[in-house]
């Protein structure tokens, strides 16, 4: 690999360009009109303008990007995350053009991208998925029989319904007997189909994911990340390791992730996501992501492994350099996604001119960003300004350092989510790590009510 085209923008383009340069690989940036003066353009050896500002006409223009790569003499393409990163057709087109796609094969992206197929692969590899009925059940007797297999509490939903409509949670067989008839009748009335799906309901679930690295033959895991703090399914704060799982769960979950990656002959960095039942400590496969993830630096800080550099090495044809017994997590890392959104106005996106910018630094503080003083946050792309990632020898010192680092951060001109994180750090439940996927939204609701 001599010359790498980075098919992305923002902080991840900067991140990838840095990893490539650290390895002595030349880099080609691509950019839209709005990003002509962006740092990733300046940091790369060469840059190509690929289209107007809206992403659909630039960063999502697969053919234009491949043509730019060819014209620039690139022999590899890194897709980053988002945009074209998990489009199997793009991976295939890059390979067809005679270049290396930094990621798994198109067929693996396809397999993992389809949730139903991914669950089938996981089940075949002996990895638990959330228990439920594969098809709808037509009557109460069938429902009670299925519930015996699935276990309580469970969720009852119309087989034909979409979204959250008509979902009921029942705690036991008596509850199921009471709810089934009405729910089924409602479904029949609304959708012309009275069949019901039954699925295990997890009252308090954590979202924990395992980082894997594969070279197509062998696979290692690089530990887990806790990603339960979400708003509208968008992660806001992540950490490594997870404060919510014990050694037994960790061992079983990381082994399951490796098994799944092996089953598909995984090459590159990937993530296997699980839901963990906080009460029973059971874990269930949800999905696999075939890209480098936003929150990958937390894993890097606790393991000392540059995941993007490993992606590039594997893509260049090298075998994995690390054996499983050489990978260990040390200390604790927390990442805060600083976004141009206004928490006081329901997280309204806030593009605009940025004035002064002061970024935190000092021991064990890392900021992955594209933000510079006197620049503009364009309205066309996601709102992520910077990832503030801190390391500490344990969770407590990582939290203390987070407080210090957030205090050093200044962004003038646009509202950001940074102030919210300062408050979050003072919450007892955050301090003790006792939260689940619903906690952050509940906290935001409580704050809103207290303020009004």
């Amino acid at each position, binding site marked *: 690999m001599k010359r790498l085209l980075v098919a992305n923008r923002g902080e991840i383009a900067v991140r990838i360009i840095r990893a490539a340069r650290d390895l002595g690989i030349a880099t080609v940036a691509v950019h839209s009109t709005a990003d002509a003066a962006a740092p990733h353009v300046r940091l790369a050896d060469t840059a190509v303008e690929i289209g*107007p*500002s*809206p992403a*659909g006409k630039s960063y999502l223009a697969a053919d234009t990007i491949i043509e730019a790569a060819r014209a620039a003499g690139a022999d590899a393409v890194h897709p980053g995350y988002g945009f074209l990163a998990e489009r199997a057709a793009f991976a295939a087109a890059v390979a067809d053009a005679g270049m290396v796609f930094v990621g798994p094969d198109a067929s693996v992206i396809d397999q993992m991208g389809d949730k139903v197929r991914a669950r089938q692969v996981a089940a075949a590899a002996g990895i638990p998925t959330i228990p439920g009925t594969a098809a709808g059940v037509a009557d109460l007797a069938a429902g009670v029989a299925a519930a015996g297999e699935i276990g309580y509490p469970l969720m009852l939903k119309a087989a034909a319904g979409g979204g959250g409509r008509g979902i009921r949670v029942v705690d036991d067989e008596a509850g199921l007997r009471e709810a089934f008839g009405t729910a089924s009748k409602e479904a029949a009335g609304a959708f012309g189909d009275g069949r019901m799906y039954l699925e295990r309901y997890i009252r308090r679930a954590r979202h924990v994911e395992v980082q894997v690295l594969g070279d197509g033959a062998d696979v290692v895991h690089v530990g887990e990340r806790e990603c339960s703090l979400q708003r509208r399914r968008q992660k806001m704060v992540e950490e490594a390791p997870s404060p919510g799982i014990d050694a037994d769960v960790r061992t079983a979950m990381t082994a399951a992730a490796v098994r799944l990656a092996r089953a598909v002959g995984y090459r590159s960095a990937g993530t296997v996501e699980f839901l963990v039942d906080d009460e029973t400590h059971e874990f269930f496969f949800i999905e696999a992501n075939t890209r480098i993830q936003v929150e990958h630096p937390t894993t890097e800080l606790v393991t000392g492994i540059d995941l993007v550099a490993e992606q590039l090495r594997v893509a260049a044809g090298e075998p994995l350099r690390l054996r499983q017994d050489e990978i260990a997590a040390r200390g604790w890392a927390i990442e805060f996604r600083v976004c*141009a*959104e206004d928490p006081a106005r329901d997280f*309204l*996106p806030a*593009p*605009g001119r940025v004035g002064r910018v002061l970024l935190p630094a000092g021991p064990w503080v890392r900021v992955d960003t594209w933000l510079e003083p006197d620049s503009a946050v364009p*309205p*066309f*792309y*996601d*709102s992520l300004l910077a990832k503030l990632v801190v390391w500490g020898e344990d969770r407590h010192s990582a939290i203390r350092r987070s407080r210090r680092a957030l205090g050093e951060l200044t962004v003038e001109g646009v509202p950001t989510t940074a102030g919210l994180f300062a408050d979050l750090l003072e919450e007892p439940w955050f301090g003790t790590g006792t939260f689940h996927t619903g906690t952050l939204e509940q906290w935001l609701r409580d704050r809103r009510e207290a303020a009004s």
Partner: protein
Amino acid sequence: MARHEIVSPIPGVFYRRPDPDSDPFAAEGQLVTAADTVCLVEVMKSFHQVAAGAAGTLIEFLVENEDVVEAGQPVAVIEPTVIEAG
């Protein structure tokens, strides 16, 4: 009565349809109520509906589908329905 300009409250990309496969929210010449959505503006991957803001006839759109708009930029014009005083 003065014409009513519908302005985009945010910068972003202007869309006339809820999604590429659907019909436009409103056609030129169509009657709309104040609460009717007439377009979407996409900002940072989130979509914001823009309401007519006045009842009347939507005379014309001032920007094309997928144009980039600024905050406060007029995107359409409404000829308000005149309600005669009793």
